[in-house]
């Protein structure tokens, strides 16, 4: 076990493509770090540089207290689970798991002990004599895990290990990996582009975009205080709503009316003509179910809901609106880059399950202004978070990592978020409010 330190790591491929740019990251001993980002952002490249399958163009990589840039993969003592498992088809499950030990010339007796221990842990006992070709996807995945855990590696590296499994199995294996990592307490770097995995598994999440780190933070911090438009749009499902607003003084003119940010969220708007307001679906509510005590923290506006999706525990309402052309183009661009969920010029609003607003009628909707973020449309920077940081109120983005600093998972866009209906709950999970 060891800490992994990346310092100004760059990767330029042979064809000149600059895939990873100035990445610096401290991964503490025993920490579970997730690398996320859209396809092609350099996640695999980064992981492969750590494991030694790809040369580091510039920068320094340290494992423990050793510089390993020049070391071959086998001298780094890391174990890796490949996206497609890369099991040895000519060897049985037993020999697949034993492979690293055999290479290390471990005595047979010890090999047997360790393989059995790993197979107990992964429930592979009845398959030990079978060949990988005859196993199911989930079983193969576990064999790959077995091969990784059987030796005492300094760290585990996973490259989208669950992406080939169906949804149900993925859920199971996710819990399995989380349990295993906690049990073994080994430093883990996990690449995924599934944000549920990102939010639920890791101690910290690294969001990458075109080879550049956007934000490194706990999943909660990432969700509540994204540093820019990209992170805000990438994390959360359904994604954050972006509403364009023109600035006059300290009031914001939006398609839904004139809004004024509460003192706890004020940002310096001077120098900005247009800003983008970001609000998660759960920041909205059916005005009729909002209690009077919290109503004053937000604004109420009228909008026509065209579709409602009722999910039992909550419902999503879709509110189309007109946005200026350039803003629409920018949002479309962001959507393309995120290659995730559509960010149309429509609001996705999470309503309390008890709300009875019918589809296709104008409704009165309340927005909690304390949960609104202001983004600079040009740079994409989250002005609210930088303002909070300046005032020393937001958590720092790179908190001292602790391996055991696990938090209850606020699944994006799921029920974990305190129901917004009863106003008192809105206080929780918000950036520290000003006194």
């Amino acid at each position, binding site marked *: 076990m060891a800490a992994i330190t990346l310092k100004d790591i760059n990767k330029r491929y042979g064809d000149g493509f600059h895939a990873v740019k100035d990445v610096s990251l401290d991964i503490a001993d025993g920490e579970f770090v997730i690398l996320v980002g859209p396809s092609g952002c350099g996640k695999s490249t980064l992981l492969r540089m750590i*494991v*030694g*399958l790809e040369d580091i163009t510039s920068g320094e990589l340290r494992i423990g207290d050793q510089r390993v840039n020049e070391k*071959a*993969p*086998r001298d780094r*003592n*890391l*174990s*890796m689970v*490949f996206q*497609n*498992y*890369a*099991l*040895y*088809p*000519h060897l049985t499950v037993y020999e697949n798991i034993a*492979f*690293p030990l055999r*290479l*290390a010339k471990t005595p047979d007796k010890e090999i047997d002990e360790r393989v059995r221990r790993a197979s107990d842990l992964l429930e592979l006992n009845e398959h030990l004599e079978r*060949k*990988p*070709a*005859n*196993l199911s*996807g989930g079983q*193969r995945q576990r064999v790959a895990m077995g*091969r990784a855990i059987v*030796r005492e590696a300094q760290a585990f590296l996973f490259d989208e290990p669950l992406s*080939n499994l169906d949804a149900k199995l993925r859920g199971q294996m996710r819990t399995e990996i989380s349990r295993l990592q906690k049990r073994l307490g080994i430093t883990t770097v996990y690449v995924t582009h599934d944000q549920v995995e990102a939010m639920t598994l890791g101690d910290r999440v690294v969001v990458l975009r075109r080879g550049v780190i956007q934000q490194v933070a706990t999943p909660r911090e990432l969700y509540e205080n994204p540093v820019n438009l990209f992170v805000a749009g990438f994390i959360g499902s359904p994604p954050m709503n972006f509403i364009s607003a023109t600035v006059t003084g300290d009031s914001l003119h939006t398609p839904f009316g004139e809004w004024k940010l509460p003192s706890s969220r004020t940002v310096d708007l001077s120098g900005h003509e247009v800003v983008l307001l970001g609000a998660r679906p759960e920041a909205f509510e059916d005005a009729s179910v909002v209690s009077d005590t919290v109503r004053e923290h937000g604004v109420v506006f009228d909008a026509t809901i065209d579709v409602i999706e009722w999910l039992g525990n909550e419902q999503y309402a879709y509110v189309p609106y007109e946005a200026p052309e350039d803003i629409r183009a920018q949002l479309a661009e962001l959507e393309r880059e995120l290659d995730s969920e559509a960010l149309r010029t429509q609001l996705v609003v999470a309503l309390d399950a008890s709300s009875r607003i019918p589809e296709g009628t104008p409704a009165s909707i309340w927005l909690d202004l304390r949960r609104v973020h202001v983004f600079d449309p040009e740079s994409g920077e989250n002005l609210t978070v930088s303002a909070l940081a300046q005032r020393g109120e937001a958590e720092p983005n790179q908190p001292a990592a602790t391996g055991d600093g696990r938090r209850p998972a606020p699944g994006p866009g799921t029920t974990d978020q305190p129901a917004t209906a009863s106003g008192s709950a809105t206080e929780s999970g918000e950036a520290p409010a000003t006194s």
Partner: protein
Amino acid sequence: MDENQLSRGTKAWWWVAGVVVIVYALFPVAWIVSLSFKTPSDLATLQFLPTNWVWDNYDNILRGDAQDLFLSALRNSVGISLIATFISVVLATFAAYAIARLDFPGKRLILTTALAVAIFPVISIVTPLFNLWRNIGLYDTWPGLIIPYLSLTLPISIWTLSAFFRQIPWELEQAAQVDGATTWQAFRKVIVPLATPGVFTTAIISFFIAWNDFVYGISLTSTEAARPVPAALAFFTGASQFEEPTGAIAAAAVVVTIPVVILVLLFQRRIVSGLTQGAVKG
């Protein structure tokens, strides 16, 4: 396609077509086998089965007059073909591995050259080769045949093997390296076992090519020192001047077919493809 999904009508047609092909291909073989058991007087009768089944022809080539000619030719053929196959497979394995795995300038050039060599007609180079070999002393020696045989077997070996290597997932080798293997260990413990079926297939093809060659065999040899079986058959003589050596040739043809059949039967299992199945997500 799944057999069960074929309707009975289609199935019947496949059977008919299959039988036609088999008869067409095997009838000459059967004819030769039958010839080899005939007495000289029986040869011209045009009837399919011998009137008397005799071993005379085999006796003739293995113990009788033709013994010297045939047995030395058999020894030459086996030796030369095996050596040519071995060299060609070893060289082709390394070449194909490099072609499939590495990016280096001139990669395409190697492949196209190999192809060009393969399509070059043998007959057009055999005369210059004859002169050259005589001058440098390779005429009528084993190396004198092994070298031209390599020019026949190497291109096809490189092509089949590089196609085969390309199918082996690259990641297996990387996984092995992460698991603690050196490049050589990764090659030996992961790539070689996976490549074995391909190597065997290639070896068999190479062996057949060398084994079946006639043009080089007859042009570049003059004595029993190096003359292979296909060439030696042409030198068979009948028991008397007036007799055709047909029976002896037929018997020799049957004898030289046997190793080929044995080879195929032996390695049939090895040639199964799809061994890489299950390495990656399926």
